[in-house]
């Protein structure tokens, strides 16, 4: 009499398998996923996998300064003799950490504001929320971040704060668009007529239908946040020396271009690798979710 639950979990497994099939049909998405997993692994286990973990902080070895790439130092060493490869592994920590922290600061408020404004489309609430959003979007994001970072003490925390402040409107916009469409679905009307609370309608009826685009945008945005973070580090407003921020390393090495090219070229390639990975993963997710809708 009491219905069997295993049926549901079997269904879920099958859905998972189907989604994986859709995702894996595109080789580039697999490449993206693999890159993201690899970078995450290197970041998490940097002290174990880096050939010279000590080189990640203030370390000086003038005897081996400015060595070109060799077997001993695969990506060469910088002007004070630190191994570039080891520093890149530790640099991933800052880049990924920044992405994760910024997104977790940005997504909840953006999503909630977008939901509220979208559901109340056409009312004063919608106008107030979305006009504030527009104001934030009107300011060029990098300029705003530069302004905040230079007014406050330039460090990683303030860089994240600055990026978060200019990033939430995109989520508000995305969810606003979705919610203002979904509110016209009859399941919302049905919940309203039964007498469901606003909380239930926003978070139980509308939000679950916005999850796939939010996840897709998050994975694409990881790349963008990392680029902005690196840009801030490059101009000296993000990760501070001697810590190994990828942007900081590119900036330091740029003084010795083109003779000692490896000092900034390898960290640059590392940024490209991370961003590309997240973008490919995001594209794959988008295609997977798009196929789901059909």
């Amino acid at each position, binding site marked *: *009499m*009491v*219905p*069997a*639950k295993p*049926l*549901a979990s079997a*269904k879920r497994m099958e859905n998972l398998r189907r989604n994986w099939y859709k995702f894996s049909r595109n080789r580039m998405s697999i490449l993206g996923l693999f890159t993201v997993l690899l970078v995450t692994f290197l970041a998490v286990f940097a002290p174990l996998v880096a050939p010279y973990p000590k080189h990640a902080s203030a370390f000086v070895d003038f005897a081996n300064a400015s060595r070109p790439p060799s077997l001993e130092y695969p990506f060469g060493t910088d002007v004070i003799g630190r191994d570039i490869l080891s520093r890149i592994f530790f640099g991933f920590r800052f880049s990924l950490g920044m992405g994760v922290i910024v997104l977790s600061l940005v997504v909840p408020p953006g999503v909630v504001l977008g939901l509220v404004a979208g559901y109340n489309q056409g009312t004063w609430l919608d106008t107030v929320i979305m006009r504030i959003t527009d104001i934030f979007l009107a300011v060029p994001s990098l300029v705003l971040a530069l302004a905040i970072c230079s007014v406050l003490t330039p460090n990683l925390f303030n860089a994240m704060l600055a990026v978060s402040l200019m990033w939430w409107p995109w989520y508000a916009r995305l969810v606003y668009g979705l919610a203002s469409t979904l509110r016209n*679905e*009859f*399941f919302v*009307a*049905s*919940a*309203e*007529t*039964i*007498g*469901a609370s606003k909380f*239930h309608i926003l978070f*139980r*009826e509308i939000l*679950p*239908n916005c*999850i796939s685009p939010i996840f897709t945008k998050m994975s694409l945005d990881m790349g963008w946040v990392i680029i902005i973070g690196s840009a801030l580090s490059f101009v000296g407003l993000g990760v501070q020396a001697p810590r190994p921020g990828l942007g900081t390393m590119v900036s330091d090495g740029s003084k010795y271009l083109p003779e000692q090219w490896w000092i900034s070229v390898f960290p640059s390639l590392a940024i490209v690798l991370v961003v590309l990975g997240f973008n490919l993963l995001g594209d794959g997710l988008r295609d997977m979710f798009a196929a789901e809708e059909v």
Partner: protein
Amino acid sequence: MTDLLTATGLKKHFVIGQSGILKRKPITVKAVDGVSFAVREGETFGLVGESGSGKSTVAYTIIGMYQPTEGNIAFRGQSLFQGDKKRSSAVKKEIQIVFQDPGSSLNPRRTVKQIVELPLQIHQPEKDPLPKIVRLLEMVELPPDYVHKYPQMLGGGEKQMVAIARALATNPSFVILDEPTSALDVSIQAKIINLLIRLQEEFHLSYLFITHDLSLMRNVASRVAIMYLGKICEIAEAAEFFRNPYHPYTQMLLSSIPVVSAAEEELKPKKITSRGEIPSPVNVPSGCSFHPRCPEKMDLCSMEDPLMVEVEEGHTVRCHLFSPEQGGL
């Protein structure tokens, strides 16, 4: 039989934009423009009309999605719209609706259990609602293991059954059926209709059955009302309605039902060819709104809007042919 729900002079106008150089003149759509009817206890009241006639707007106003522009709706003698006051949960419980498209009325991200559980949570919270949910599913002839399914895993008819189970969860006395079968395959339509008839007998439900399908009304409705451009043209007992329609529009609709046998052909009113299509509700013709399409148009028709007249007991018509000034019949 007593009246359960009465609508009196119900109007719902939507402002869709502004016209004129200074944009001062609002453009309104008179979706519902002065509709009065009563649904009696235990009956099926059929509300029939072409698309754009305003029949769904009537339904959405009854369930409270819209505030009426004018007029009122009373349920068991009590007005449903008293100023800005929120509708009591007792009334929300009593009036339920089954929407036309079950694809849109069931949230794709919620299981059947969660969908049917919601009205229970709000109106009759229980520690373990599962047995009640299973009983509701059985009532609409769905197997109990459907509780963990998502709507996408169900067929169109099954989805509509879930929607019916959800509507019945709070033990309502009045259920609005907004074209409950028009999105379904013909083979499933009959099944849903039979289910609805059975449930009506079992729980003594009153239905407001909204549809554009007249031949369906012949089988299920006790009384039928025809709507045209936001107004009701004719109300009659179902048998009388199909045997003896007065309004030219009703005659036009009935004569356009396709039939297969000669016996059925004889039941049909004299052949009236339908002319044109329903005009836009933004630009409603003057006088009687049906006059541009009416085969019996008189000079009066384009000038004056006819009133509802009771031609026979329980049979009212809104047409100048039957106005007292015209000498009635």
